[in-house]
């Protein structure tokens, strides 16, 4: 049995990257008491728009900017439904996901029927010859900039306190002069942008092309990670690493002689089982943001 530890760590960081981007995006939104089930569709939109613009312009950078724009719009749409109209968050989120995925697939069909377009120029890995550090810049930024920044903002800035105040007690926040509506909109837009970057990472960095179903449930994994993390930044990162590490491990184990006889389905389920096990151990006594799932109306 041979496990290549360096390749394992490298794969873990790559697999975890979209989860860290989108997971932190979801965390920021949920901090204000809004559950954004539009995450799967928002990641899909980011992957598609990023790809589309990068393909047309020849620049993955423009693709990334477009993806961010798309994520912001998806956040605004979610805000319109859940904040302005005060609709049920579950229904709105699932509706947004269905709408965005269907719209992207429709557009892809109209534009590229039967073709398999590939980007001429995608993001390349930095340090391709150094084990483990052979990652995309978006991976570096996710772990070294985004996570610490999100942690710091939530913990030590006025913006972070306003997010939490709205999430924990929106009436008190309103009385204190914090606009519940504006705070939730900002969180949804920022969160949407981060989710879209997570999706665009797959098309602009990992693959250089777009296929249907490209997100394949990664958004739902992020929803679980945020609950597992009890709405804290570093545990989201840790959860993403556990999931990704287990996934990378099963990919290596499944092709060794020793594990060759173990049913594939069990091996493929390992990352999910790991997250469920982690939830069972650490995920108890979850304290949800007190205004979770609730629309705010004055009076």
């Amino acid at each position, binding site marked *: 049995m*041979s496990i*290549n530890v*360096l*390749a394992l760590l490298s*794969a873990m960081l*790559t*697999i975890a990257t979209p989860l860290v981007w989108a997971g932190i995006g979801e965390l920021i939104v949920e901090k204000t008491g809004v559950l954004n089930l539009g995450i799967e569709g928002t990641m899909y939109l980011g992957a598609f728009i990023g790809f589309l613009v990068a393909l047309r312009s020849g620049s993955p950078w423009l693709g990334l900017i477009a993806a961010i724009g798309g994520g912001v719009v998806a956040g605004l749409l979610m805000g319109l*439904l859940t904040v302005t*109209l*005060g*609709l*049920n968050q579950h*229904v*709105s989120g*699932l*509706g947004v996901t*269905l*709408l965005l*995925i*269907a719209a992207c*697939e*429709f557009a*892809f*069909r109209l534009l590229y*029927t*039967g073709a*398999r377009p*590939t980007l001429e120029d995608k993001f390349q890995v930095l340090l391709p010859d150094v084990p483990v550090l052979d990652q995309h810049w978006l991976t570096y930024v996710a772990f070294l900039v985004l996570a610490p920044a999100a942690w710091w903002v939530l913990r030590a800035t006025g913006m972070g306190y306003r997010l939490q105040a709205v999430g924990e*007690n*929106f*009436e008190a926040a309103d009385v204190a002069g914090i606009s519940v509506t504006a705070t939730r909109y900002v969180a949804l837009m920022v969160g949407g942008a981060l989710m879209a970057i997570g999706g665009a990472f797959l098309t602009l960095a*990992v*693959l*250089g*092309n777009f*296929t*249907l*179903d*490209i997100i*394949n449930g990664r958004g739902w994994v992020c929803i679980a990670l945020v609950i597992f993390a009890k709405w804290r930044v570093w545990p989201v990162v840790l959860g993403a690493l556990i999931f990704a590490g287990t*996934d*990378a491990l099963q*990919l*290596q184990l*499944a*092709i*060794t*002689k020793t*594990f*060759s*006889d173990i049913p*594939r*389905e069990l091996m*493929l389920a390992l990352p999910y089982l790991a997250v469920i096990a982690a939830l069972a151990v650490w995920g108890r006594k979850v304290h949800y943001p*007190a*205004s979770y799932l*609730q*629309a*705010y*109306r004055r009076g």
Partner: protein
Amino acid sequence: MAQIRRTSSGHHRLAALAGTAALLLAAACGGETGEEPSGGGGGGGGEELPLIYGVFATPLEEPWDGAIHSALQSAVEDGQIEYKHIDNVSTSDAMERTLRDIATNEQPDAIMGDAFAAEEAVRKAAAEFPDIPFAFGSGEKPVDPNMSVFDNWLQDPAYLAGMLCGGLTKSNIIGVVGAMPIPEVNRIVNAFVLGVKETNPDATVKVSFINTFFDPAAAKQAAQAQISAGADVLFAERDGVISAAEEANLPVVGMMVDQKEEAPKNVVTSLLWNVRPTVDAVTEQATGKPASEDLGTYSFMKEGGSDIAPINTDIVGGVPDDLVRQVEDKKQEILDGSFTTPVDESAPKGSIDVSQQ
């Protein structure tokens, strides 16, 4: 604690939104329909062309249904048929409803599609309309009087691709990334392994599955795990593997269509499925009378139903002339019937010593 404040209008809004969501869902499930007018009107003798309706469970972007769709389109271009289609009919009940609706309202001369996700539903609809030939991709048997089946029997090109990979590997380790261990995938992987054995009895084949038809990022990770375990030639049963091969500068075999364009220095060949002979057989039923045939053999290499793409000798490291000749000789044997690729649909293991096969 904060409390929920719902106004009565909130309830109306909720209902309205639920309605919108339901509509969206219906739209998402309903798929696209398309119509392809026949291009053969020019030289026509006034005879009406048979209408074949394509009913596909997945979006056309899925390579399997895409192959059926392009074969039907090529028959349209040749002036053989008229063709309409609907795709993404993803559930069993939607399949049954759609088939009944099309059979009643469109009165096609034949219906073609894939039944893997809805074997029962398709058979039920076929029984209700015995005058319309139904020809579906299926893992089961034909049913009298009008339900024919076909499948992608790609064991021949898989065997030839295996021979190529066996001859190309220097580490004696070859990686295969497939969708999931189902018969249609298993028999391709198993034939590939036998092909490897013919040119390289010392090789080991590593087989990974991603358990879904679309997840190129996962397929790429699986391929990279194989590369880290020493694989230096890959077989991309799924999308995403070619990208890993290109980055690691290794030879790779593509699937369903010639994928050489995606990585001209890496894609050595691709397994090709040509559904046209199957479509022609269905057209014959459409103009004649319904039958219950197993059309599977129309996908065999001998019948022109499958092939490998021209071997790309410009790949990294090149392809030895001897190896090309060996593969071409074997192809000849398959075509003249002196060699028949064994069909084995058992699930392959994760690590296979080809000498023990």
